[in-house]
């Protein structure tokens, strides 16, 4: 079972890891997006994420579903935090487990790249000089222009046969 959530409270990476994993999985992978202290040469004190929550919940679930089908694992958890975050806090956590590492890396990378392309979330940076600005962002990619899942990844609705 995949798990996705848009949350306001701090993300606990150890908890996210408990949502994945299975006896047939030899790889467990955790990606964290973290608020950094600079952007475009400016010193960042913190950020605020806004969202269209109902839609973000649906889009995140779609993205994870695509990754699951492509990578042949449903042991995937993806959580995005909304609200005020300080430098060093986790904004997004993606955990994937699969029999072998390649599928986990592919799925994790696909999910974070698609989040950046189409999750309806916006980020306002607070700079150390007191100014605030919306991060420019990118025009979201509409579903009919969404690229196919990673090339070379196994296409599987059913679990993969265990290969090398």
């Amino acid at each position, binding site marked *: 079972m995949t798990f996705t959530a848009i949350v306001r409270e701090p993300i606990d990476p150890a908890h996210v890891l408990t949502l994945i994993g299975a006896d047939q999985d030899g790889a467990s992978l955790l990606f964290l997006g973290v608020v950094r202290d600079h952007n475009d040469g400016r010193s960042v004190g913190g950020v605020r994420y806004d*969202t269209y929550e109902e839609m*973000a919940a649906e889009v995140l679930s779609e993205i994870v579903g695509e990754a699951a089908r492509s990578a042949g694992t449903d042991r995937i958890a993806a959580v995005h935090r909304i609200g005020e975050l300080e430098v060093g806090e986790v904004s997004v956590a993606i955990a994937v487990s699969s029999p072998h590492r390649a599928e986990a890396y592919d799925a994790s990378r696909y999910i974070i790249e698609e*989040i950046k392309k189409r999750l*309806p979330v916006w980020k306002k940076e607070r700079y150390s000089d007191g100014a605030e600005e919306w*991060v420019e962002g*990118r025009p979201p990619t*509409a579903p009919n222009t969404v690229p196919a899942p990673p090339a070379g990844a196994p296409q599987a609705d059913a679990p993969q046969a265990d290969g090398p």
Partner: protein
Amino acid sequence: MYGHVEIRTLFFASYKELLGTGELQVDLPEGATVSDLVSALRSRGGAFTALPTEPAVAVNLTYTDPTSLLSDGDEVALIPPVAGG
């Protein structure tokens, strides 16, 4: 006889700040498209003219083409460039 459709229109982030509101009910003639809604908003003048002519739009939680027809009661969100992750 011309019918009309009532559209719940949502604004987020920079658009919400620009317009000073996150939500408007907009009345349009039956047969109106997403693109017609954007034109109607921009024709309100003032800050509305600063909206893009072709913003990304979601109808009922799904990204949608500007030529899509709107139905009475649709929830339409104007989606600024996204910056999640």
